[in-house]
């Protein structure tokens, strides 16, 4: 098989990670227009939960993943009820400032508790190494990542398209006022969606450690990539996040492989180009 398939595979895997990190923000931004720049702090939280459970309590890797999800979701509910709720109708700028403050606090807390060093994590043996197939090497961990992400995507789509709650969310994203008028409890729907999105970010953070590492600056570094995915994909759209994440993941990796000299520029050029062509994003449903 020509190396392009290996590159595509790697790119898709990286894209899947970005998807898990971004999908929550896309839906909550689309639904409530709440600019949550602290989204990646939840991802970071999930990562640190996994590290703690594995390195201090000896949990197996797989058991820590649901724990990361739940921990991030719970913390997000607490924050949402206590603080964020009051700012749904505040200006964009106030929301930015508030959530940036939360990011700063989370980074400092992580540095205090865990130090600023990289967090090592030992994956189970069958997830290390690679599988040789038709002359190419497919990393086992990337296969795992793609599988998990696809599974979650299917679950999300099923939940959104085939459940009543999903219909309520879609209604709230499309036209909040109308949805309220029809008696849908938009606030409750939002709270649950926020928790879900943050939980997914937490899961993404846990899965990210073995691929891109974890340290307290994670909350800021990946915020940029998540914002890129969300703006390119379009707000409030799961499919948009999915498509944008794959597009960006593949172009980033392919760019670095084929033309390393402009590898670092490519992701920003692609983003600027796509946003200029489609300001609403590829599949955006709401004007930001």
């Amino acid at each position, binding site marked *: 098989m020509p190396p392009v398939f290996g590159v595509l595979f790697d790119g898709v895997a990286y894209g899947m990670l970005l998807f898990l990190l971004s999908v929550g923000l896309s839906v909550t931004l689309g639904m409530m227009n709440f600019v949550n720049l602290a989204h990646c702090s939840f991802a970071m939280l999930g990562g640190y939960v996994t590290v703690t459970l594995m390195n201090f309590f000896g949990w197996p890797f797989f058991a820590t993943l649901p724990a990361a999800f739940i921990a991030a979701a719970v913390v997000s509910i607490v924050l949402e009820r206590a603080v964020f709720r009051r700012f749904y109708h505040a200006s964009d700028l106030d929301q930015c400032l508030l959530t940036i*403050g939360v990011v700063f606090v989370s980074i400092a807390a992580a540095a205090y508790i865990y130090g600023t060093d990289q967090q090592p994590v030992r994956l189970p043996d069958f997830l290390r190494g690679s599988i040789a197939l038709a002359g190419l090497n497919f990393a086992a961990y990337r296969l795992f990542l793609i599988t998990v992400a696809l599974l979650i995507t299917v679950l999300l789509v099923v939940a959104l398209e085939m459940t009543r709650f999903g219909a309520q969310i879609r209604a709230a994203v499309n036209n909040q006022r109308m949805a309220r008028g029809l008696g849908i409890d938009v606030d409750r729907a939002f709270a649950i969606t926020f928790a879900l999105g943050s939980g997914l970010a937490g899961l993404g953070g846990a899965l990210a450690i073995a691929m891109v590492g974890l340290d307290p600056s994670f909350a800021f570094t990946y915020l940029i990539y998540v914002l890129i995915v969300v703006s390119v994909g379009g707000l409030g759209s799961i499919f948009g996040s999915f498509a944008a994440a794959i597009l960006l993941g593949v172009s980033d990796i392919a760019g670095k492989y084929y033309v390393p000299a402009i590898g670092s520029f490519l992701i920003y050029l692609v983003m600027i180009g796509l946003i200029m062509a489609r300001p609403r994003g590829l599949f955006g449903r709401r004007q930001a």
Partner: protein
Amino acid sequence: MTSATIAAPHDYLQTQTRWRWPEIGFWLATLSPFVLAPDYLLLASQVAIAALFVLSLDLILGFAGMVSLGHAAYFGVGAYTAGLVSKWGWGEPLTGLLIAGLVAGAFGYLTSFIIARFRHLPLIMITLGIGLLLQEAANSASWLTGGFDGLQGIHTWPIAGKFHFDLYGYTAYGYALAVLFLIFLGARRLTHSPFGLALRGIRDNGERMRAIGAPTRSHIRTIYTIAGMIAGIAGALLAQTTETVSLEVLGFQRSADVLVMLILGGVGRLYGGLLGAIVYMVARDQFSGLNPQYWYFWIGLLLIAVVLVLPNGLLGGLSLLARRLKAAS
């Protein structure tokens, strides 16, 4: 349309542009570090530079409603221009400042053609993208910019041949403060003019402005160019007073910091930006001195506290307080 109604906007602007005593008090207070805190003049000069940078962002964000996450691009262009001009042999600060301002302004003008077409999230992401691209380009062009190590060989000549840049920072602060004050006067005049009113109109309701025939795109391009020029001058000041320029003048951290300073102080009030710069820079210096590893924590709490307690930033909260006191008395 009687002459009274035509005169009304003119009178409104006239009353707005009168100098009030808090303003005069503020500018007199900026002279106090020379006497009260001469050990802190270097910090004061960097606060003045930050204040000028925040001022430039306020013009596009507070008055024209354009959120930019890449404003450091213009700051960096100005810094590198001033640095390179000095490195190539011409270290005279005032002309270097002008050249840097013109180059940054030109860059602002060119990018404004793209930027003026977008609002909200697309605008944020495009400005972010431009900033990040520029930083990568500066790293790649290390033959020009010095890359990671930074630009070496900058030497700023004494101002007017007499005022040498000393170790204590007297000249640095005096220079930065003077430039800040002059540009502030210009910005103040600009925002209290019909053009300034037009900008506020664009910020509040762009479609309506277009409906009444205002050339919104052209106004946005103009203010963006001006803001770029001012940001470039701030960058040049940093390059000249510290004789250092490195990649982080173009970085996301700097763009994010200036945005935080502006929102903290209060957008759209000119003085808000200045206040935000002072509070943020001083707080950062003090927290950092107290406990270097964890100053982020206290800054984060400060930001959260300000948002919870003072809507519209520090100045917004203060003016609310002043109004309440006035109403009570």
